[in-house]
């Protein structure tokens, strides 16, 4: 098996894929946003419960590849209890990490555990998978009314 495949599908990612965190519909959510990549079929809903400026609770459900699902799972684990501004900030950092040029470094300290997704940039066709849940979440915080897709 090649090294970059091993890195892409490392243990933490496979664990989130197999046992996704916060993987359920939320009946009393304040916001529910759907993210859909029709070409590859990744299809998730992100649920948000807000209290003032704080993400009180966040969950997701749906289906997709290991990369999209584990990224969504990690995202919900990290964002619970964060403020809107912190969530926006993390979105920016994750976006930078995923879409950087191959071989370029990124600030791992700013993204914490999410750095496990750093290897995705080696696989340009998979960046859209890793970023889908994040764009869906952002639409929940800052609604634009547009259909969420990263294709």
């Amino acid at each position, binding site marked *: 098996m090649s090294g970059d*495949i091993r890195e*892409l599908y490392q243990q933490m990612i496979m664990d989130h894929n197999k046992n996704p965190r916060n993987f359920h519909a939320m009946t009393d959510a304040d916001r529910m946003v759907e993210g859909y990549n029709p070409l590859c*079929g990744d299809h998730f809903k992100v649920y948000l419960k807000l209290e003032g400026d704080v993400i009180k609770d966040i969950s997701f459900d749906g289906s997709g590849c*290991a990369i999209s699902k584990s990224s969504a799972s990690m995202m919900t684990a990290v964002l619970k209890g964060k403020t809107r501004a912190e969530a926006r900030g993390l979105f920016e950092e994750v976006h930078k990490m995923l879409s950087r040029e191959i071989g370029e470094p990124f600030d791992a300290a700013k993204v914490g555990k999410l750095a496990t997704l750093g290897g995705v940039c080696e*696989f340009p066709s*998979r960046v859209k998978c890793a970023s889908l849940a994040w764009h869906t979440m952002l639409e929940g915080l800052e609604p634009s009314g547009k259909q969420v897709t990263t294709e």
Partner: protein
Amino acid sequence: MSQEAGWDVEKIRRDFPILGEKVYGKPLTYLDNAATTQKPQAVIDTLAQYYSKENANIHRGIFCLSEQATKRYKTARHKVQGFIGAASDKEIIFVRGTTEALNLVAQCYGRTFLKAGDEVLITHMEHHSNIVPWQMLAEGIGIKLKVAPINDQGELIMEDFKKLLSDKVKFVSVVHVSNALGTVNPVKEIIHLAHAKGIPVMVDGAQAVAHTPLDVKDLDCDFYAFSGHKLLGPTGIGVLYGKKEFLEKMPPYQGGGDMIRSVTFEKTVYNDLPYKFEAGTPHIAGVIGLGTAIDYIQSIGLERIEAYEQELLSYGTEKLLQVPGLRLIGTARHKSAILSFVLGEAHAHDIGTILDRQGIAIRAGHHCAMPVMQRFNVPATTRASLAFYNTFEEIDRLVAALHEVTEVFR
């Protein structure tokens, strides 16, 4: 080793320069032939030769190059006619591809000869290009689209097809070979049943022409559509075969040069077949390249190609079924060399990425046949689609890489 007498796959592979390429340092294992086939050197040379030594517009110039280009363009049409067994080369319309051919018929035949309430019958295994044009027609003039169901093996249920073939049905459009399942439809029987009720039939032959011999006269289809690039030819060129009696009474598809006989601001007289449907400067190099592709495929012979691909299919089916957790989607008795499958919990795109790093090119997704995915209740499949230049060893490589996928997703 192939049972096909005198079959030398290594010799054939040398005709396709790309098959010697490496991907991530691994030999390219190209198993995405249902998406597009690779091109033999002869086709590549034809395109280079045309643009470097022969380029000129056709039907216009009173000079040597234009006359030569016109002649080669006509010769290619004649080759297509022979290849598919059409009665006349006037029945061969050059279009951009299968999609355009299907749209042309939906628009030109549909808008003229169908009316609100008329039914068009298709199957559940159509590619989007044989669904959406009819839905557009339904929106435009109010026809109704009827869909004949398929069984768990991915075969058309003929009993239901017969029931759906009511007096309201005024057109039938069916896929010859399903791109997502590999199913070969009993098109001859379908055509026979429809004709018994006076209903014209179009066949989407995109996945058939490079894999099985075709005789449109014997089939008796009224329209047959296919793409050049799935037949070793260039992209951007395809063919609509139509019976003369239909093409003659249909209005043109687009207006412009070449499709007219005379134009005044009061009245335009359309040109004869096939030019009536070929407005504007066509894809001349593509047409000539397609002619070379047909020469090449005929030099090998479609009977032998089909026999060898069936050997690959049997071998591949057997080997894939030995991979733990693998389920084939599409297990029709009569199949073309397409292996569509799901593997345990692994999503098709993850499989695609892992295979890609081994130099193996396959397709992952819904294959532009979302209703098929819905029928089998899967979001996507991984599809290996074979051609006559593939080898048993390449199938072994695919299987080995799938074991690697299983390891990652254990």
